[in-house]
């Protein structure tokens, strides 16, 4: 019997996978980077950014995201954590040990226009 060969998964793949999993979560968003921070756009439509540190067959994730406001930050981020642990492992076979979440912005539903502008909703 010859060996069936090896499967190598790059950290970028894990990052993209994790990011894509979060895109499906309601009330979770990200920031597009723009050019040197100019034109950066924070929206619930964008994907959160994820950094992966691989060690052996497991990894830790660092997520930067935005949340809709008002909702419990603890609960929303626990959902993110659970989703990532189960689905990243399911899709890539890499065990997720830790998910650190940094909440970068909160978007109130009431203020669609943002600061300085008024919305007539």
């Amino acid at each position, binding site marked *: 019997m010859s060996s069936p060969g090896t499967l190598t998964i790059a950290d970028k793949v894990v990052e993209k996978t994790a990011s894509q999993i979060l895109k499906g979560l309601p009330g979770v968003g990200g920031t597009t980077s723009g050019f040197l921070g100019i034109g950066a756009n924070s929206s619930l439509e964008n994907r959160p950014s994820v950094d992966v540190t691989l060690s052996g067959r497991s990894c830790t994730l660092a997520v930067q995201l935005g949340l809709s*406001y008002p909702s419990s*930050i603890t609960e929303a981020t*626990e959902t993110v*954590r659970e989703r990532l642990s189960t689905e990243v492992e399911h899709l890539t076979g890499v065990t997720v040990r830790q998910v650190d*979440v940094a909440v970068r912005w909160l978007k*109130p539903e*009431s203020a669609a*226009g943002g600061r300085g502008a*008024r919305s007539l909703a």
Partner: protein
Amino acid sequence: MRRMAAGANRTGLIIIGLLLTLGGLAILAIGFGLAEAVVPGLGAQSDLQPVAGVFALPFSALLALVAAIILAVIGLRWLAAQIPRKDAAKPLRLQRDARTGVTTVTANVIAEAVAEDLEATPEVVDAEAILRGSAKQPELVLHVDVDERADIDAVVTDIAQRVTRNCAEALGSPLATVAVEVGIARTKQRRQRSVSL
């Protein structure tokens, strides 16, 4: 809203004030001959040669330099202390179990969401929020500018019932203290630049 160095200012004023008063009174006491009873020969007619003599002592220029540096440091630090401070809370940790990862939110992120939420209150023209304390004992300081004809009771009720409740929900704990300063924007001073429909 922001914190001022009120305590330091008052202490500084009292210390310098006392020094000036004592110095001034001493000069007057000698000038009017009242000090002669304590220091014989130190009267209105004696000259200031002993004072001028101090400036003629060796190394007095070096001492003057050292004194100048000390005074300059005190003056600069006192001036710097006048910049109003936000004293916002340290980044909040909101995870359930740190072993599976930590959740961090800066006080600024929450304060901005609260301010944005506040601006959705009818008749609020401008709003600023500062979050102090900790995740377990949050303190929210708000400043709102409302329209001059606004129903202020309605604005305060909205803050009490909606804005602060939203913040408490996001943080997952009741707010230990909420302080609101209500300013009035005169119509001619207020100018809304855009409207999004």
